[in-house]
């Protein structure tokens, strides 16, 4: 059984720190996603694990063995890249059989293994074809087949679906997840696509500029992001951020935005806000699904008056964009939303689902947990 453990890993390219003191433990059989924007260090991380790069500092363990000095070919890990490097002059069969032939396996066993893998990936009927006769999705399956045929300890995947079109990507996502369920081996899957990370990963590690930001299961990462960067990476459309001011009153505390004011009488909330260090600025984060649109001014609750900027009908939902100041905010509404650009609307914030971030450190210091934390008390007339 193999777990993969990284201890204080640092990797530099000249003066650029690609990976900065990273610690991580991935357990056997885990589908582990690494999520981050281009340049975050995701690919470097994979290359370190597979052995194509050597860390400047720190140790990499596979099982109990420190593999820093172990050659890539002896680490028993296979890697699948975004650009599927298939041999164009070899048939599908020969492409999949390649790693087995390199290991000088006998022809009978090779045939058995290739056919088994091909069946698993539903490409057994095309074994005699050349890569040029296959569609993008089929080619991707062959590349995966070649990686899994020799049954290594772990599979590392570098955006393997990025070059496929949207429909195919959806389909391949499901088959990858099923495949991992069958193989029960470690998958480390690198992506910049949050949907892939949320839907595939048992756990997600969010990486930014070489630094590990947060590790957790998809739900934790989505609902309790530990900082603004993580909150932005997850969710489509991403979380909205309102720059606000804290105003301390005698028995309450207010969060003020040019468009609205929220007040909290709750003692524990006040305690957190009053003891917050680093100035009176605060950033309020609200997910697009936690903002509600009223086309008429609601009588029984306060709401922020504004107007529609644009609407994006997506069929199963409508994204409504509003502008407060010069910033665009996004709200998810029903598929049959009827508002038009420039029309006046009233926005209700779900105050039980707010996230408060420190303006300086960008760290989240509070996730509201109940309906009584805040009340929207005033909306300034525009």
């Amino acid at each position, binding site marked *: 059984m193999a777990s993969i453990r990284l201890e204080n890993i640092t990797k530099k390219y000249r003066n650029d720190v690609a990976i900065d003191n990273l610690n991580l433990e991935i357990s056997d059989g885990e589908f582990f996603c690494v999520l981050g924007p281009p340049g975050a260090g995701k690919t470097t991380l994979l290359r370190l694990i597979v052995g194509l790069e050597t860390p400047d500092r720190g140790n990499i363990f596979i099982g109990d063995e420190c593999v820093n000095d172990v050659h890539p070919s002896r680490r028993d890990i296979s890697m699948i890249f975004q650009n599927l490097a298939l041999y164009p002059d070899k048939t599908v069969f020969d492409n999949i059989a390649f790693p087995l032939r390199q290991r000088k396996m006998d022809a009978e066993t090779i045939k058995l293994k290739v056919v088994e893998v091909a069946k698993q990936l539903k490409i057994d009927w095309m074994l005699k074809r050349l890569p040029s006769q296959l569609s993008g999705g089929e080619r991707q399956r062959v590349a995966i087949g070649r990686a899994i045929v020799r049954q290594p300890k772990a599979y590392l995947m570098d955006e393997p679906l990025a070059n496929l079109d949207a429909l195919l990507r959806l389909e391949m996502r499901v088959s990858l997840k099923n495949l991992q369920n069958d193989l029960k081996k470690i998958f480390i899957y690198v992506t910049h696509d949050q949907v892939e990370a*949320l839907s595939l990963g048992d756990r997600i590690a969010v990486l930014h500029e070489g630094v590990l930001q947060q590790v957790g299961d998809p739900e934790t990462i989505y609902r309790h992001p530990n900082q603004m960067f993580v909150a932005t990476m997850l969710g489509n459309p991403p979380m909205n951020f309102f720059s606000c001011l804290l105003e301390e009153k005698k028995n309450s505390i207010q969060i003020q935005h040019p468009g609205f004011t929220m007040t909290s009488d709750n003692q524990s909330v006040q305690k957190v806000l009053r003891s917050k260090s680093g100035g009176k600025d605060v950033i309020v984060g609200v997910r697009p699904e936690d903002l509600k649109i009223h086309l008429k001014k609601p009588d029984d609750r306060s709401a922020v008056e504004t107007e529609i900027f644009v609407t*994006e009908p997506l*069929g*199963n939902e409508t994204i409504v964009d509003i502008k407060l100041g010069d910033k665009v905010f996004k709200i998810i509404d029903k598929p049959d939303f009827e508002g038009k650009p420039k029309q006046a609307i009233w926005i209700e914030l779900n105050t039980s689902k707010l996230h408060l971030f420190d303006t300086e450190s960008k760290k989240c210091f509070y996730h509201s947990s109940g309906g009584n934390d805040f009340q929207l008390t005033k909306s300034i007339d525009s």
Partner: protein
Amino acid sequence: MARIVLDNLVKRFGKQTAVNKLSLDIADKEFVAILGPSGCGKTTTMNMIAGLLQPDEGKIYFDGKEMNAVPPGKRGVGFVFQNYAVFGHMSVYDNIAYGLKIKKMPQSEIDREVSQVSELLQISNLLSAKTSSLSLNDMQKVALARSMITKPRIFLLDEPLSNLDAALRNIMRAELKNIQKELGQTSIYVTHDQIEAMSLADRIAVMNFAVLQQFDTPLEIYNQPKNLFVAGFIGSPTINLLDAIHSSSDFILEDFQNKKLTISEKNRNRVHDQLDQQEVVLGIRPEHLKLSDKADTGNGDLTATVLNIEPLGSKTIVYLRPESGNGKVIKAIMDSDYRPKTGQTKTLVFKEKDLYLFDRISTDLVLRF
């Protein structure tokens, strides 16, 4: 600013027909998306509109004037590509001003135009920066600004957002839509991403295998897809399509061990009138399919076992397989905190009005219930 009419355009490459008898009437100021899988002919269509390719048959008109013989430079068309063609060694200002400088516009006018367009795109603070130091998002804005400043009457955009990361794509989508409405330039946007097409366009032209499938508003395309291809191409996750046989008052669901689905009296007659053969496909979108633990829910007791789930934060996608079915996978969109166990059996719940009925032979939509 122009109305664009494509009249029976045909383009062949050797024996391959890339675009087959394409006719489109695009109104002045309209934002039209051409949507389809790779190889469907969408980029070829755009290249013909721009004049980079000559059609083998058919005519192209801008505001009633035939364009076939007009060279690209004289068509008044602006381009923005997937790979932003910006000059890395030039400043943002010089990049944006480039199109005006080669037209030998006086400097004061150039200054005014550049400041106007950069304000609109919110890059005024970057004008003196080197383009190579910009983020991808800003670089794409510079590419847009450079094309916009020449005030083409027609804007052609070929997957301009596909190199941006997801968060930036989201922001740029809203900005682009708003800018297009403010400038009022007729715009054609080529994409394989149905979400972009749906969210940006006034109307979408869906193409497949060189042929136009449907030309309609986003919601019309979503709710009244002309055929199985359009239905399957729009919507994420994709629509559930179930093979069925129509018999007098019921549908026999082949994917569910021939269980019967009985439909209401009112719809029975409509189906009877409009369907002229037995083999059909019933469609139901994942957001209209709900899962229940109760046995009978009035939909003929259709059950399926949970294969896996995708917790996407704001919602959960559940993949299921019909019990002792033929391997088809069914998708349902459920609430964000819905967490069934793999292998659990669920009953499918849906409303008759949310069903789509397709003819399995012609693949055309027969009716919505």
